[in-house]
C-alpha cells in the first residue's frame, strides 16, 4: 500500500500541486480571488458549457451505437469474433492525434467524403462527436458486453415461460442486471469525452474548445498560468465527482449477480431479425471504426508517384529536419519507453490492487481505489508541465532523464492495471492461501503456487493494456519527451505540424505503424482473455 501511495504522491499529486500553486500563488500569497475572476468570464463559461454538452452528447451517441454491438458480442457466436473484438479496441488505445488526423482525412477538406459527395464536417461539432464514438465504442462493448455475456440467459427464458412478453422479460430481468454496467460504461465515456484533448484540438479549430484544450492554450500559448490553474481545479472537481459516482456503480455491480461462463451463453444468430442485427452492427463497425483506420493506411501509401512505400522509406532518413533523428528511431524509443512504463504500471497497479483486495481494507483504502483513476481525468497537460516544474531539484531532478516519460505514461497505465486485476484478485479464495500456509508453504511459495497461477492471465492482460495505453499516451509526453528522443505519437504530431506532402505522408505512415503495433498487442491479449476482465 505504501508504495503506490508514495508513487502517486510524488509523481502525481506533487507535480499537479506545484503547477497549480505556480498559477495561484504570487509572492507566497494564495490568491483565491482569481477563481471568481476566471469564473465570471463569459468565454470561460462558454468553454464549460461546451465541454459539458458535447460530453453528454458524445456519451448518448456512443451508447446508442455501441449497445447493440455489446449485445452482439455477448450473445452471438460468429466467425472472426476474436479478431473483431481486437479491432474495435484498437481505436481506444490509439493516440488522439492519430484519431483526429484519421477523421480529418475522412471528413475534412479533400477527405474521402468531400471527394465522393462534397460533404465536409471538419468545422462542425459532428466531427468531434463521431470521433468520440470511434474512440469509446470499445469501452461500452467491453464493459457492458463483458457482463452481458455472463448473465444467465435462462433467467430471461424463465420469465418468457411465465408469460412475460419479450420486451417485458428484457426490461424486468436483463435490464436491471445490466444497468450498473451501462451506468459505469456511460460514466467512463463521459469522463473520457469530458477531458478530450487531441480530438478537439485537431477537429475543433479555434471555435470549439473543451476545458482540457483551454488549459493547454492558457498554459502553453497564452501563458496565463492563473487561469489554467483555476480551470485545472474545476476539472479536478468535476472528474472527482464523476469518479465517486463511478466507484458506487462498480461496487454495486460486484454484488449479487449469478454469473455463468460466457462460452455457454453465446450462440449462432437465428432468424432474419438476428442476422439483420448482426449485419447492422458489423456495418456500423465498418463505417465508424474500420473506415477511418483504412483511410489512414491508404493515405500513407498514396505518394505523388502512385501507390507505394516511399513515405515509409523516407522515415529512415533524417534530412526531413523535423527532428535530430530519423523518424523511424521513434519506434524503438516508443517501445522502450512503453516497456518501462508497463513495468512500473504493473508493479504499482498490482500492489494497489493487492492492497485493495485485503479483507480488512477499510474505507480509506476503498477511497484510494477511486483516487487511482484520477490520472485518467486530470489534464495530461497539467501533469506534463507539472513534471517539468516540480521534478527539477535533487534528489528528484529527473527533468533531463529518460525515466520521466515512462513515469508519466505509467500514471495512465496504473488505472487499467488496477481495474483488470481487482476482480480477479478478489475472486481468489483466501482459504486456499491459508490452507497452503497450514501445510507448511512459505509466503513466497504460497504466492507462487496459489496466487500466481490464478492471476497470471489477468496480469498479462493488464500488462498488455498498460503497454498499449503507454504507447499511445500523448498529452503529457508531448511536454516532457526530449526533442531528440520523440515517441511515436509525438513524432506524428510534429510531422503533422509541418507543411508539405512528405511530412504529411510520413505522419500517416508512422500512424499506421503505431496502429499495427497496438493491434498486434491487442490480438495477443484476446488469446489470453480471462472470464472476469471486461472493464475497459
Amino acid at each position, binding site marked *: 500500500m505504501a508504495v503506490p501511495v508514495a508513487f502517486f504522491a510524488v509523481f502525481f499529486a506533487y507535480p499537479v500541486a506545484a503547477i497549480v500553486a505556480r498559477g495561484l500563488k504570487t509572492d507566497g500569497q494564495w490568491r483565491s480571488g482569481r477563481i471568481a475572476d476566471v469564473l465570471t468570464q463569459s468565454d470561460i463559461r462558454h468553454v464549460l458549457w461546451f465541454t459539458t454538452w458535447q460530453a453528454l452528447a458524445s456519451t448518448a451517441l456512443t451508447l446508442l451505437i455501441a449497445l447493440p454491438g455489446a449485445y452482439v458480442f455477448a450473445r452471438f457466436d460468429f466467425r472472426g469474433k476474436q479478431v473483431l473484438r481486437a479491432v474495435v479496441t484498437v481505436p481506444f488505445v490509439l493516440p488522439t492525434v492519430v484519431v483526429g488526423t484519421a477523421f480529418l482525412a475522412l471528413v475534412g477538406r479533400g477527405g474521402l467524403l468531400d471527394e465522393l459527395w462534397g460533404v465536409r464536417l471538419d468545422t462542425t461539432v459532428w466531427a468531434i462527436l463521431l470521433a468520440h464514438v470511434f474512440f469509446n465504442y470499445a469501452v461500452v462493448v467491453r464493459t457492458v458486453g463483458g457482463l452481458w455475456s455472463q448473465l444467465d440467459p435462462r433467467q430471461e427464458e424463465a420469465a418468457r415461460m411465465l408469460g412475460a412478453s419479450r420486451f417485458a422479460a428484457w426490461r424486468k430481468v436483463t435490464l436491471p442486471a445490466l444497468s450498473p454496467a451501462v451506468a459505469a460504461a456511460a460514466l467512463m465515456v463521459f469522463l473520457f469525452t469530458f477531458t478530450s484533448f487531441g480530438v478537439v484540438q485537431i477537429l475543433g479549430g479555434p471555435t470549439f474548445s473543451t476545458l482540457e484544450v483551454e488549459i493547454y492554450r492558457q498554459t502553453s500559448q497564452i501563458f496565463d498560468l492563473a487561469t489554467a490553474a483555476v480551470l485545472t481545479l474545476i476539472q479536478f472537481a468535476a472528474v472527482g465527482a464523476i469518479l465517486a459516482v463511478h466507484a458506487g456503480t462498480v461496487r454495486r455491480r460486484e454484488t449479487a449477480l449469478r454469473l455463468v461462463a460466457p462460452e455457454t451463453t453465446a450462440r449462432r444468430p437465428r432468424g432474419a431479425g438476428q442476422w439483420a442485427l448482426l449485419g447492422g452492427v458489423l456495418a456500423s463497425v465498418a463505417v465508424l471504426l474500420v473506415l477511418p483506420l483504412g483511410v489512414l493506411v491508404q493515405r500513407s501509401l498514396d505518394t505523388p508517384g502512385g501507390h507505394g512505400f516511399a513515405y515509409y522509406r523516407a522515415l529512415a532518413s533524417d534530412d526531413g529536419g*523535423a527532428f535530430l533523428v530519423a523518424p523511424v528511431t521513434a519506434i524503438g524509443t516508443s517501445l522502450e519507453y512503453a516497456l518501462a512504463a508497463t513495468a512500473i504500471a504493473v508493479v504499482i497497479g498490482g500492489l494497489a490492487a493487492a492492497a485493495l483486495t485485503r479483507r480488512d481494507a477499510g474505507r480509506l483504502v476503498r477511497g484510494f481505489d477511486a483516487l487511482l483513476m484520477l490520472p485518467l481525468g486530470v489534464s495530461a497537460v497539467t501533469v506534463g508541465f507539472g513534471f517539468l516544474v516540480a521534478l*527539477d531539484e535533487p534528489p528528484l531532478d529527473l527533468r533531463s532523464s529518460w525515466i520521466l516519460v515512462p513515469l508519466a505514461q505509467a500514471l495512465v497505465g496504473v488505472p487499467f492495471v488496477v481495474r483488470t486485476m481487482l476482480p480477479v484478485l478478489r475472486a481468489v479464495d483466501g482459504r486456499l492461501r491459508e490452507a497452503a500456509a497450514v501445510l507448511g508453504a512459505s509466503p513466497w511459495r504460497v504466492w507462487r503456487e496459489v496466487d500466481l497461477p490464478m492471476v497470471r492471465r489477468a496480469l498479462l492482460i493488464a500488462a498488455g493494456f498498460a503497454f498499449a495505453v503507454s504507447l499511445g499516451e500523448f498529452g503529457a509526453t508531448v511536454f516532457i519527451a526530449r526533442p531528440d528522443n520523440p515517441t511515436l505519437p509525438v513524432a506524428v504530431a510534429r510531422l503533422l505540424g509541418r507543411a508539405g506532402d512528405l511530412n504529411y505522408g510520413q505522419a500517416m505512415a508512422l500512424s499506421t505503424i503505431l496502429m499495427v503495433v497496438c493491434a498486434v498487442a491487442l490480438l495477443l491479449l484476446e488469446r489470453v482473455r480471462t472470464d472476469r476482465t471486461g472493464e475497459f
Partner: protein
Amino acid sequence: MSTTKKFAAVAVGLGLATLSACGSSGGGSADPKTVTLVSHDSWAVSKSVLKDFEKQSGYKVRVLKDGDAGQAVNKAILTKDNPQGDVFFGVDNTLLSRALDNGLFQPYEAKGSDLVLPQYRVDQDKHRATPVDSGDICVNYDKAYFSEHKLTPPQSFDDLIKPEYKNLLVTENASTSSPGLGFLLGTAAKYGDGGTSGSNGGGWQDYWKKLKANGVKVVDGWEQAYDEEFSGSAGGKKAKGDRPLVVSYASSPPAEVIYASPKPKTAPTGVATGTCFRQVEYAGLLSNAGNAKGGKALIDFMLTKEFQDDMPLNMFVYPVREAAQVPAEFDQYGPQAKNPETMAPARIAANRDQWVKSWTSLVLK
C-alpha cells in the same frame, strides 16, 4: 498479506534501481565542450556554417527544437531555474517582454552588437536580448485568383474591409499563432486602441468588427492557413484551398519560387505591402546556463557576417547586421516592405494580453 509484502519488496527494489540509474544520467548540460541551443521548430542553418563555428570555437552544438515559437518560449520560462540548454533563440518582439519580465535571460552584450542596425536594438541598458533576424508579417495574395476575377489585389488594411474582398481572407488565431498576433498588432499600430467600451470607439476593435463582417476566416496555426486554406501556395493548391488572401510573411513569395521545380519566372503570390508588421527575433543567454561561456560564443556567432549571410535562405528572414547580404531572390520576388507598422516593445508589453483577450471574444466567440 504475504502477497502484498512480496510485491512491495520487489517494487521497492525496482524503484530504487531505476532512480539510482537515472540519477547518473540526470542534470543539465554539464559537458563544457557542448553548447545547447533551445529554439523553435523553424530554426535552420547550413551544415557547413555550423561546422565552421564548431571548428573555430571548439564547441559541439546541440539543438533542441521545442515546438512553435510561443510554446518554446513558455516552456523555456517554466524551466528557467534549471534550463534545458544554454542559449535560447527565437523569441520575437511580440513576446519579448514576457521573456524579460520572467527573467529568462542573463545580461550579455554580444560581440558585433554595435553592427546591428539601430532600428532593431532593444534593452540597451541591460543587454539581455540580442537581435538576430527580422521579417515582415503581411497579407499575401494569390495572383492567379485576382487576374482571373479581374480584381485589383488589396494593398492596405483599409482595402481588406471593402466588399469586393468579402470572404477572401484567412488569418491565424492571435492567441495561438505568432503571425496571427503580429497581424493583430499591425492593426492596433495602424488604428490605435478603441478601448474596452467597445461599440463604436473606433480603434482596432472597430476595424476587426468590420473585418469579421467582411467574412474573415480564423484558423489555429500558420500551417493550416497557408498550406490548406490559401489558394496561392503549393500546399494550398493541393489541398484545394479557397481563400486567395492569407496572413503570412513578406518572404513567402520567394519561398514559393525557390522550393518549386521547375522554378517559375515570377512568384505565384504577391504581398499587400500596406498590411505589414515588422517582427524581430532575438537570442539570449539563458539564466542558469550550464555552459555560459559556450553560450556567449554561440550568440556572438549569430551576429557574424557568415551566419547573417547564410540565415535568410534557411529561415526566410532578413539579416539585422549592417552590410549583410540580402539574397537576390528576396528582392526579385518579394522586396521587404518600405513602411511596415511597428510597435514599441513597451507598448506591446503593456497591452498584448488584454488585446488578445478582447480580440478572442470579439472575433472568435
